[in-house]
């Protein structure tokens, strides 16, 4: 069959626009401004370890909150009537289709010191709460933006669980708590894994949410990279080094997550 040649244009594209740019990040990370080999950039990343730790901490926190909030929701939806399920899942997806800058901007207007939440609090006779430009606001923004990525894979796994397995557990005398802990939850692990990855990766590498809701004081890895390429601290070599570390970090996380996922259920797991 000659069909292989049909992919030739794509293979060329792949080399130019995926492999070469990734190689460029490596090259920039290991060279200085005049193009000589150096390890200084990677050593320079070390001084930002607090930013890395903050990003990972806030990203992990947002992931855990998304899981804790999203799991019951996915579970409830998977137990609803079939016609109802479609509507509910549609409702989960709908906000995701709105540009995330606008969604984040909406939270800005809600959380501000003179914003709507404080306005309502004042009307109720309660004192104002300072919410914007805090780490809490950043985590809230992450959860709000990425929780659909948690709910959807969980839902699709939960609906596929064979009813008869659950019934078998019940017949053998397991109470509903035991059924959940020993049958349903373990069987939904692939969904948990892909949900966790799909929330953690964008959360840890975001730079808009921290800029809009975190003020200037809660820099994340993404903000650092932004600053090196388009910001005041222009230094693409250091920026590439930070990007490289971020990329390796993400790949390690995904590798660890895939270890849990024996069935390889994430293959072709693209969400529409």
């Amino acid at each position: 069959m000659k069909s292989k040649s049909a992919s030739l244009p794509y293979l060329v594209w792949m080399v130019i626009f995926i492999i070469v740019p990734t190689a460029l990040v490596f090259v920039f990370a290991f060279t200085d401004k005049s193009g000589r080999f150096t390890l200084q950039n990677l050593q320079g990343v070390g001084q930002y370890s607090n930013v890395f730790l903050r990003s990972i901490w806030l990203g992990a926190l947002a992931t855990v909150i998304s899981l804790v909030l999203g799991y019951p929701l996915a579970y409830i939806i998977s137990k609803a009537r079939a016609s109802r399920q479609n509507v509910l899942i549609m409702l989960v997806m709908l906000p995701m289709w709105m540009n995330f800058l606008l969604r984040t901007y909406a939270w800005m207007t809600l959380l501000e010191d003179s914003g709507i939440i404080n306005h309502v609090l004042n009307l109720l006779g309660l004192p104002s709460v300072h919410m914007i430009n805090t780490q809490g606001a950043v985590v809230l923004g992450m959860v709000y933006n990425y929780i659909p990525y948690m709910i959807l894979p969980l839902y699709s796994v939960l609906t596929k669980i064979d009813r008869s397995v659950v019934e078998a557990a019940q017949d053998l005398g397991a109470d509903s708590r035991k059924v959940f802990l020993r049958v349903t939850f373990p069987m939904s692990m692939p969904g948990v894994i892909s949900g966790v990855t799909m929330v953690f990766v964008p959360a840890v590498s975001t730079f808009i949410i921290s800029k809009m809701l975190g003020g200037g004081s809660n820099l994340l890895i993404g903000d650092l990279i932004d600053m090196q390429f388009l910001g005041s601290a222009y230094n693409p070599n250091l920026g590439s080094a930070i990007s490289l570390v971020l990329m390796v970090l993400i790949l390690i996380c995904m590798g660890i997550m895939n270890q849990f996922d024996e069935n390889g259920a994430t293959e072709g797991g693209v969400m529409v």
Partner: protein
Amino acid sequence: MKTLSRIYLFLIFLFLYAPIVVLVIFSFNDSAVASRSVFSGFSLRWYSTLFQDGMLLSALRNTLIIAVVAAIVSTVLGTAAAIGISGMNKWMRRTVMNVTNFPMVNPDIVTGVSLMLLFVAGTRMLGGASLGMASLILAHITFCLPYVILSVMPKLRQMDPNLSEAARDLGCPPLAAFFRVVLPEIAPGIVTGLIMSFTLSIDDFVVSYFTSGTTQTLPIFIYSMTRKRVSPEINALSTCLFGIILVLLLVINMRTAKDTKRIQTSAKEV
């Protein structure tokens, strides 16, 4: 239990929709001062200023041009790629798919930065040209391609390979066999890929941010709006976009509902 789960559903959907509802309501707010928390009368003035904003209109035009070109090119290129990849041996296929998946697992910001490095180096080599529409289109095609390939591949796998062989045996030339037998079979996957590419392209901010130079797309325009001036125009814009998305989703949903119906009826016939 029933009421408890109802309450839970309500609370989560409140969390998901409250900000959007607030945006929509305040897009009709008359006052510009303290407009973010006090509603002072109904008005459509922000919609009229919005549609007179030349910057916005040119950003919208750029976004649509990029999305149409990127969606078409990535769909053609991606469909051809999927056909080629499915004809490869296992080792080759696995290698190519790993590279294809890479932009999807890689954080957007790293994809954006790496393409920026490529384009900056490229324009320096070509002399003088700066980043703009061309680099944006190339970048968008790049991040759309994996989604097209991944939505066409399963359709190719489901297809009966005997079908196109039968066409060839009956004297159909290869190209005609492709257009009359293979293409109709994988068309749903191609359409899904096209729609996904189009929406991904319209919605993209991060990759565009690093590859746009001074050209503005809609998300970049929104970004500069949220950075510089506080204007209820953003609310009006959000409301318009939300309305368009709502209609589009309803149309797509009706289409898929029709598809499943067709599959069910054809299954009955067999």
